[in-house]
């Protein structure tokens, strides 16, 4: 069964298909700087193709085996850890190179390609969960994305990785895909008390989440997705904070119908309808996804309906779509790129109810993962 496509006649689907397929084919050497994010490239292209309805599990069936080669189990039995490394040439015997981000992207890609056997019988589920656990920093509450390359005193979270909400989200999403559904499951692998304080620390007084009090739509989506996936810990904030966050998120929609902002260099009336990631910044197509995902999680439509999405769709299709080259760009005057193409298609798909934002999976793939694979 092919994924459900977004239906909008203004989309130049053929061009987008070509644009996305190009990223899965042979890439010129300028892409070598993205080596550490290779599985992200694969995921963004596959998700983008899913959103336009391509039967990728058939078209790219031959790549399942190649993807699986990025998966490694380290150690044995009850102390094994398992995960994905980003690039086949980083498979080194003496250094720990698997990472949480590559693991999530690897799992997402295999789910998109319907490698159900991997999930049902081949994966070392406990090993992956233990890897997440080893990346956890219980004193700070967050996660490093990888481990120190040498396990001197056992596996240690990398001392050189950032440990912000992105990685916390990635860790929680992996545990979810490995079968965790509520706090009693997650707490087998991570300290939920310290994780809760870490998430609370990132809550901002104006609503939203961010580092050191500066709210950011990307981090906000991470934090709310974490709560959505853990499912039974919404009580760490009062309702008033969620209301405030809805307000903060809706305020990120840029409007050309407001009093004049003299001397404002980061305002463009062409941004009308698009979402910005922070106050007083230009709109950017990817924040359409992060904001709509956040607003969906907070069930905003029950309070204010979905009309705000019309303006966003208009903005994404009329301003950021490149109907000549295919793909979408961050705004109305940059070149299209893979990340913004994936996020824009995902946003359009999300608004038509065909995407699961907190798992970052097409709805049908997410439903299969939730019900058939690795049920709790």
């Amino acid at each position, binding site marked *: 069964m092919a994924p459900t496509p977004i239906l909008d006649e203004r989309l130049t689907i053929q061009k987008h298909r070509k644009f996305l397929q190009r990223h899965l084919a042979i890439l010129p*050497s300028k892409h*070598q700087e993205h*080596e550490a994010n290779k599985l992200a490239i694969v995921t963004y292209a596959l998700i983008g193709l899913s959103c336009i309805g391509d039967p990728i599990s058939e078209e790219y069936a031959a790549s399942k085996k190649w993807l699986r080669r990025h998966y490694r189990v380290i150690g044995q039995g009850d102390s094994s850890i398992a995960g994905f490394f980003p690039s*086949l*040439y*980083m498979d080194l015997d003496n250094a720990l190179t698997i990472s949480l981000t590559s693991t999530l992207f690897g799992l997402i890609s295999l789910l998109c390609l319907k490698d159900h056997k991997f999930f049902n019988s081949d994966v070392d589920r406990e090993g992956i969960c233990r890897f997440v656990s080893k990346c956890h920093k219980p004193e700070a509450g967050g996660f490093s994305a*990888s481990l120190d390359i040498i396990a001197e005193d056992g596996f240690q979270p990398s001392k050189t990785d950032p440990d912000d909400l992105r990685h916390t989200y990635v860790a929680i999403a992996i545990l979810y895909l490995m079968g965790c559904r509520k706090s009693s499951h997650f707490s087998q692998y991570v300290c939920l008390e310290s994780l809760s304080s870490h998430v609370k620390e990132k809550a901002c007084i104006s609503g939203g989440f961010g*580092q050191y009090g500066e709210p950011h739509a990307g981090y906000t989506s991470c934090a709310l997705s974490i709560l959505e996936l853990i499912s039974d810990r919404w009580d760490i904030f009062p309702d008033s904070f969620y209301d405030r966050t809805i307000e903060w998120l809706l305020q990120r929609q840029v409007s050309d119908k407001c*009093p004049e902002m003299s001397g404002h260099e*980061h305002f463009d009336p062409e941004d009308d309808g698009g979402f910005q990631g922070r106050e007083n910044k230009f709109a950017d197509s990817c924040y359409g996804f992060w904001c709509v995902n956040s607003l969906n999680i907070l069930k905003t439509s029950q309070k204010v309906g979905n009309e705000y999405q019309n303006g966003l769709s208009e903005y994404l299709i009329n301003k950021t779509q490149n109907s000549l080259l295919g793909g979408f760009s961050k705004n109305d005057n940059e070149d299209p790129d893979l990340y913004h193409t994936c996020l824009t298609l995902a946003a359009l798909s999300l608004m038509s109810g065909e995407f699961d934002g907190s798992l970052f999976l097409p709805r049908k793939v997410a439903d299969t993962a939730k019900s058939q694979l690795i049920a709790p």
Partner: protein
Amino acid sequence: MSDDPEFQYDDVEPLPISSDQEGELCQIMYDEEYRTVMGIARALLQRLEFSERALYATSQAIELVPAFYTMWNYRFQIVRTLYGADGVKLNCELDWLDEFTLNNPKNYQIWSYRQALLQLHPSPEFQRELPILQSMIDEDTKNYHVWSYRRWCVLFFREFSNELQFASSLIARDVYNNSAWCHRMFVLKNQVREGPPSEVLTGELHYTKKQIEIAPQNISSWNYLRGLYDEFLDGEADPAIIEFALSFAPGIFAVDISDFSSQIQSSYALEFLAHAYAKNKDTFAQARKAYQALSDHYDPIRKNFWAYKIRSLTT
């Protein structure tokens, strides 16, 4: 790499990068330099060599793939093994990192690597961090990672004394810089445990009002103003601040809303007023009027949200 006279890698067999595998996606056409640099860096990592030449090899690899967390971690392990807690040597590493940072401003591994170095350093100094922070902010005054790193430093060194002034200098350059406004609030909330003393608060209120007068339609300064009241003044707007906000939306509560069409200077002033009026039943009528004006005239894109706010007034 072999062109650096200082280091010899003749005894190192570069690990090959094989490509053209079955089912391969994103097959990158690596160039020769890339194959050599990565071949040697990986070979050294594979044999766990911690040496000056390995350190150099990681810098070459990181130049080519700045997001390679494994190479950053390898580099850190080399630094730790070779230099331990030798402050002079660690400063050299920070010098290298400064240079790399200037050439790779969007990379975010640089900041967490920096934090790891400072935590290893026997006598880290806030002063040492200021020039790189300054040049990075000069290059992009809203760079989220740079602001985050600055705040991490401020907390790490417990050094707040220059921060309000620093934020002011950025706000003077661009009054719409939300990061700078958030930095102000970060200082107020973290410098003194029991909250800022009243003379500081008075100063902040005065400062904020002045900035609002310069640019009335600025969400950052109005958010900050509301933050001052919510965080430190029990959320109670006093008559003076109501009067101040009213001056940017003159006459709005005096006329019949249905034929209201005059221009106001700030929709955020109106929101501020609506928020204050919505706290008290006696002023619900004004709150409703403010929300209605936002919905009809000054912020129609959010009209359903303002309608929701009006509905919430009855509860």
